[in-house]
């Protein structure tokens, strides 16, 4: 297991979400971590935000912060900055300036995770920012929206305290602009945050008019397009334009926006408030430090990195994640944080500050009479009177021995309170108890109780008018049920130290490599004959790096690695088990083979759909984009020598039948167009698009394409382009309505490339086999626990590549490395705990009728001939309780949802 690697601790510079995530994963993997934060508190940007798309997830940050603070293996240094770094892998020496002194910290590897700073729009003298109180930045606006912020979430305009009637958002303030702010790139997150702010404004007051002035609406991420459609259906107005000036209206507090619409005519509209969607800048101090120690910085002032090594800097042993290396959103930053942990593991063995925490031996709590602690947690935005109501009800319900309101550090508040009050059961009330389950179980373990001695109470969908009655019913139910729980027996099961990777494309291969180099065997299952997946058709990344060369190297390193067993022409037929111990049946060339593994990684990839329009398949020279890409690899001259080419974007995509945006088609097109223009500057290239989504640093490429003379024409869904065949030679004519000229234009073309929607490969089939959920667009859904971007909805199953959402090569590699890091967290453990919320057979009552064997949807029970009774493996049982209900002899019990609980329920509710 990498015996020649040096050992050491790791330093993470920057205590935002990326840094926090990296520190926690590293500590989980056995490293001691120095977490350095410039400000007096951890959290970075997120505490300033109101809600994180798609749902309120701010409550996910606090537990992470407290976990960092409490972990003996994380040394949090606040108010501290790094002055200098010297040395190399395994032996870095870092000078840190703390609040009082300067010290030297020795560490084995470094992750630069200092994130972003919002752009300061003061320098735009035409936007009245700084001189007019009703012009705010998006960050300032979210502060107002936060229920726990200074305005308590009450939206008033700063000048006079009135509720605004009309609010405007201005996009690209400090982005896509080289004239005034030297930031040619797109900040990538602001379209979504403006939509989110507008929708949340509508939530506050449906009558407030919200208008977003934008150039291209860039909702390119997973689920983003759905959110855009939802915003439009809620009457958020979108105006494609360039804003000229924002001027105060004389004699009042209003603001007049002067803008040029798509027809280039100047128009005016008056608003009560204007929000400037400010762009992202990498943290200035951190970039200075990076420059000082010799880390390469790119033209956009971000840390430079290669797409094939997405979290590495040019200095070995120093990695980078999050906003310092590009304008990334929270999900991307967290994925990169996880990926950087996998990269650290590749070069450095873990050295911890202290051994992992132990749990006290669970007491025999069942013997004692129930003493219930009622803990409750309120999300921002919940009715303010609820707390008092709840406390009042708790006093009147027999059996509740103590109550506690938890906030921030939920884990230790509950643990301490249980110990203090000697409680032996817990009722936990919150808005979404499902997301707190892990935390609750951990708290019970730390308090020395069986981790399943709890019930949750859901505080959602309560009518404020009758809150008292509803709270009473729900809490009474929780308390009655928790008293009836028999503590379920728990077992420790050894972890099977093998990973199963499904999919032999770039994502699957990278995951396999990252896991195997830590010494764990990997079985890689690919349904096709060869490895490489869709990557085999890709010429270059959007940055222009040669994908074929990289892929060849990757495939050969997979083939050389003894620890990786590649099975081609193979598919997974069946999967059973749980995180730590899965069994899969893999079918290869007619033969079935059973494989035991501790984790599963799903990376099945995806493909563009076959277009049903634009003469595709009916005439030559109309290519699907993957076909064009392949042609450029095998017979480039045939395309490069053309006189004219047309690229049509969003083919069968972003339409009611297939609403998602396929993310990287715009970048593919501009990359290809630029390459063709370099080879043949005389070629006429037209790009017909609906929104140009060259997000992030891809924007530079879009600019380059325009500079090279590529012509971009926007079309609407109502006015799609028309492709006609001109002759038998394959000459084509494309007619498109040009919104600027306000008339149709005919374009002659030698080839047309159709950038059609990308969909997952066999996602539904794999979701059924591995018991994970899909999202509404048919891609794998992330864990409902949120802020776990590569975790599937079932534990021990991780996701990478296009199956999760369309993405380019670099992003697939990042996810692959992140998925590997998550998988390693399980593989590096020796044992997992099973049992808990499962069914158990009482062999004395069992009549061996086989009803359970026949009814279990997962085929778990079997007849154990030694005991002469049915047996249910607690590790495999999914805990549905169907067999408990079916068993005619009532021989199967489920301690956490017993007959007694369900039979007593009505009496409790009607008492």
């Amino acid at each position, binding site marked *: 297991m990498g015996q020649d690697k040096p050992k050491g601790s790791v330093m993470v510079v920057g205590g935002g979400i990326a840094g926090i995530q990296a520190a926690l994963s590293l500590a989980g993997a056995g490293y001691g971590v120095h977490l350095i934060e410039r400000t007096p508190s951890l959290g970075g940007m997120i505490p300033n935000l109101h809600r994180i798309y798609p*749902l309120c997830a701010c409550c996910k940050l606090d537990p992470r912060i407290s976990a960092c603070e409490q972990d003996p293996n994380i040394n949090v240094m606040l108010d501290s900055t790094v002055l200098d770094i010297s040395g190399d892998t395994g032996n870095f020496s870092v000078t840190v300036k703390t609040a009082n002194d300067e010290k030297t910290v020795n560490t084995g590897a470094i992750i630069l995770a200092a994130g972003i700073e919002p752009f300061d729009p003061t320098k735009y003298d035409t936007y009245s920012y700084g001189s007019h109180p009703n012009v705010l930045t998006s960050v300032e606006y979210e502060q107002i929206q936060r229920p726990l912020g200074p305005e308590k979430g009450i939206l008033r305009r700063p000048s006079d305290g009135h509720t605004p009637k009309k609010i405007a958002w201005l996009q690209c303030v400090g982005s896509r602009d080289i004239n005034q702010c030297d930031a040619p790139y797109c900040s990538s997150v602001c379209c979504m945050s403006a939509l989110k702010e507008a929708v949340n404004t509508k939530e506050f007051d449906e009558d407030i008019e919200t208008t977003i002035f934008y150039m291209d609406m860039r909702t390119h991420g997973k689920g983003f397009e759905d959110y855009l459609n939802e915003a439009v259906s809620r009457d958020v107005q979108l105006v494609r334009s360039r804003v000229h000036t924002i001027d105060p209206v004389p004699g009042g507090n209003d603001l007049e926006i002067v803008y040029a619409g798509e027809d280039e005519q100047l128009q005016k509209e008056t608003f009560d408030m204007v929000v400037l969607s400010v762009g992202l800048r990498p943290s200035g101090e951190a970039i200075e430090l990076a420059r000082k120690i010799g880390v390469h910085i790119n033209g956009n002032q971000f840390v430079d990195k290669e797409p094939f090594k997405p979290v590495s800097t040019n200095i070995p042993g120093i990695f980078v994640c999050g906003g310092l290396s590009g304008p990334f959103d929270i999900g991307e930053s967290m994925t990169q944080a996880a990926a950087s942990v996998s990269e650290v593991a590749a070069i450095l063995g873990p050295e911890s500050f202290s051994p992992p925490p132990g749990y006290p031996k669970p007491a025999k709590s069942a013997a004692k009479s129930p003493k219930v602690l009622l803990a409750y947690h309120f999300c921002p935005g919940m009715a303010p009177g609820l707390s008092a109501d709840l406390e009042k009800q708790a006093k009147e319900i027999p059996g509740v021995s103590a109550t506690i309101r938890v906030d921030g550090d939920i884990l230790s508040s509950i643990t301490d309170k249980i110990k203090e009050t000697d409680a032996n059961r817990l009722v936990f009330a919150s808005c979404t108890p499902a997301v707190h389950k892990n935390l609750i179980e951990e708290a019970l373990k730390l308090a020395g109780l069986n981790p399943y001695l709890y019930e949750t109470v859901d505080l959602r969908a309560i009518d404020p008018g009758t809150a008292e009655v509803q709270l009473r019913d729900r809490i009474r139910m929780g308390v009655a049920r928790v008293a009836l729980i028999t503590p379920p027996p728990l077992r420790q099961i050894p972890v099977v130290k093998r990973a199963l990777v499904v999919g032999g494309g770039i994502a699957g291969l990278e995951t396999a490599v990252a896991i195997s180099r830590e010494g764990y065997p990997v079985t890689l299952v690919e349904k096709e004959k060869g490895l490489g997946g869709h990557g085999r058709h890709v010429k270059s990344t959007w940055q222009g790096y040669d994908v074929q060369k990289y892929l060849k190297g990757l495939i050969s390193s997979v083939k050389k690695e003894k620890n990786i067993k590649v099975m081609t022409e193979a598919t997974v037929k069946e999967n059973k088990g749980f995180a730590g111990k899965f069994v899969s049946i893999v079918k290869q060339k007619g033969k079935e083979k059973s494989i035991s593994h501790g984790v599963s990684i799903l990376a099945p990839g995806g493909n563009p759909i076959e277009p049903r329009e634009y003469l595709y398949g009916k005439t030559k020279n109309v290519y699907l984009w993957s076909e064009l890409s392949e042609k450029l690899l095998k017979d480039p001259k045939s395309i490069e020598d053309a006189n004219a080419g047309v690229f049509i974007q969003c083919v069968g995509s972003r339409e009611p039948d297939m609403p998602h945006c396929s993310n990287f088609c715009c970048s593919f097109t501009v990359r290809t167009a630029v390459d063709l223009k370099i080879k043949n500057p005389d070629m006429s290239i037209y790009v017909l698009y609906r929104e140009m989504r060259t997000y992030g640093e891809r924007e530079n490429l879009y600019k380059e394409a325009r500079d090279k003379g590529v012509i971009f024409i926007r079309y609407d869904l109502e006015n799609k382009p028309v492709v006609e065949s001109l002759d038998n030679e394959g000459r084509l004519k494309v007619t498109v309505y040009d919104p600027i000229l306000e008339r149709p234009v005919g374009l002659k073309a030698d080839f047309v490339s159709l950038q059609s929607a990308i969909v997952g490969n066999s996602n539904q089939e794999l979701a059924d086999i591995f018991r994970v959920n899909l999202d509404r667009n048919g891609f794998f859904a992330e864990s409902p626990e949120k802020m776990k971007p590569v975790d599937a909805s079932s534990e021990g199953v991780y996701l990478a590549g296009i199956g999760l959402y369309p993405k380019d090569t670099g992003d697939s590699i990042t996810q692959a490395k992140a998925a590997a890091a998550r998988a390693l967290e399980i593989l590096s453990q020796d044992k997992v705990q099973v049992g808990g919320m499962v069914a158990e057979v009482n062999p004395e009552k069992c009549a061996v009728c086989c009803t359970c064997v026949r009814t279990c*949807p997962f085929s778990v029970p079997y007849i154990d001939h030694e005991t002469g009774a049915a047996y249910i493996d607690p590790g495999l049982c999914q805990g549905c*309780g169907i067999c408990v209900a079916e068993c005619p002899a009532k021989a199967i019990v489920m301690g956490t*949802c017993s007959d007694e609980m369900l039979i007593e329920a*009505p009496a409790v509710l009607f008492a």
Partner: protein
Amino acid sequence: MSDNFKPKIVAFYCSNCASSAASVAESMNKALPDNVKIVQVPCTGRIEILHLLKPFEEGADGVYVAGCQEDSCQYVTGITKAAKRVAYVKKTLEQLDIEPERINIYNLSAGKGQAFVDVALEMNDIVRKLGPVLSE
């Protein structure tokens, strides 16, 4: 029936789809009526006939089960089994001269979160029209 009759209703909710649906309902500011009392189960397949009859014995005027869509039950057959049991209880109620409409089963999904509350209101309406059990 008298307008101020407030039926007692017990609802068995599955903790998977119903929990996601509750999130959506909450975000839409939809609230459950206070006379609908919830009992959570890991899966609707856990519910037995006795569990469905017991509320009537304790004075409920209506009972319903809210689970997943038939094709997307996390536990595959849970909701199908629950539907069979509800159908059985309908017959039992008929034999007891109680209107079978007093028990129902609904399929929820996270995508149609408002249904979390809408089915409660629908059931409330049905039972209100029927009046209390054995009111004659």
